[in-house]
């Protein structure tokens, strides 16, 4: 089963929750860090990395012998990655979305492709080999998160338990990350900001028709807005995590939620089974 841990708002505790599920489990788990702009699960899981692979996307290469400088490719490109001023086009690889349209409209067959590196995937093992860790990392200055996320997802097995640590927000990288999950946990905090962004995230997963529940982090620190909203909308609150100084201290040293609040281990161990039962009942 694939559990995606997402949120509207950033900094609510996605990684905290995802790492806690992976570490509380007793069976083999795949931990997939799809937050490729700032992957941080490895800080807590401390995997031994055994392989690093480049993520390549295709970008156009212009054959200046064949090019007639007609400019059709540049006019076609919606991403402004090609510029033609009555000359063979200049290519801006970092703007290219690899749609392939320029090669299709080129009447001179002057466009071919080459791989351009936009990030890397690392594979590792944590917790004595029980937790497999795959992490995607976008190159500094890169903007194309979805192709890196797709590469991460290609390492997630179909069987067994997987936890997908998603990027924040509700845009393309999030859709790509939660796309093939069986269940989504939306982590939020009990503040007006948390509630506002939770509503956007709920709208997104409902649009995608995915089953989901909410996790409230530091539930005893804010207001009751999130709980009231979940009640009105008939949304399951899977778990409420208390605010504890010990948790903050542990976290700041790279420890997990299970180190900071050990009594929550059993709850997080049960989450995959609770989700599984919920899916079966539906």
């Amino acid at each position, binding site marked *: 089963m694939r559990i995606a841990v997402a949120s509207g708002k950033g900094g609510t505790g996605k990684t905290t929750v995802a790492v806690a599920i992976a570490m509380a489990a007793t069976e083999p788990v795949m931990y997939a860090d799809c937050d490729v702009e700032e992957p941080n699960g490895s800080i807590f899981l401390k995997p031994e990395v055994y392989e690093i692979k480049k993520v390549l996307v295709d970008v156009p290469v212009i054959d200046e012998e064949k090019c007639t400088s007609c400019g059709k490719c540049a006019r076609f490109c919606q*991403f402004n*990655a090609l510029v033609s*001023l009555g000359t063979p086009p200049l290519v801006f690889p970092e*703007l290219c979305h690899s749609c392939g349209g320029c090669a299709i409209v080129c009447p001179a067959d002057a466009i071919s492709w080459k791989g351009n590196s936009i990030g890397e995937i690392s594979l590792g093992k944590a917790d004595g080999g029980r937790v497999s860790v795959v992490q995607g990392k976008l190159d500094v200055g890169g903007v194309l998160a979805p192709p890196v996320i797709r590469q991460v997802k290609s390492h997630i097995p179909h069987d067994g338990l997987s936890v997908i640590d998603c990027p924040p927000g509700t845009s393309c990288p999030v859709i790509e990350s939660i796309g093939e999950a069986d269940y989504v946990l939306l982590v939020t905090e009990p503040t007006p900001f948390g509630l506002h962004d939770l509503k956007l995230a709920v709208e997104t997963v409902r649009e995608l028709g995915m089953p989901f529940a909410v996790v409230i982090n530091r539930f005893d620190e804010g207001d009751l807005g999130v709980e009231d909203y979940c009640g009105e909308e008939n949304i399951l609150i899977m778990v409420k995590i208390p605010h504890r100084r010990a948790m903050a201290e542990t976290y700041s040293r790279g420890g997990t939620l299970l180190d900071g609040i050990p009594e929550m281990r059993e709850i997080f161990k049960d989450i995959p089974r609770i989700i599984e039962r919920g899916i079966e009942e539906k």
Partner: protein
Amino acid sequence: MKIAVPTSGKTLESQVDNRFGRASGFVVFNTEDGTFVYADNSQNLNAAQGAGTQASQNVAGTGAGVVIAPSYGPNAFRVLNSVGIKTFISAPGTVKENIDNYIAGNLSETDAANVEGHW
């Protein structure tokens, strides 16, 4: 020769815009007859990406040989440079003040981008 200056207004008295790629338009001054035209660049104001390359194409389309702007990103500079458009650094003030300063030789040319992309 024609000189293009990014501006938020449409006249010689308008202030120079802080940005090149996402300026709302360019005043293009013709030094031979003292006339000017306004070239719209508003489709780039909210472009998701590539404003610098598009704005540079717009400027090249006006026939300008010189641009006077406060800063140039790497993509904009590469396009302007590829067609031999000279890039000068503006001072705060109006379009006209900057053109006068350029003609008087008071502005310096830059031979590289002077800000990061997405500035």
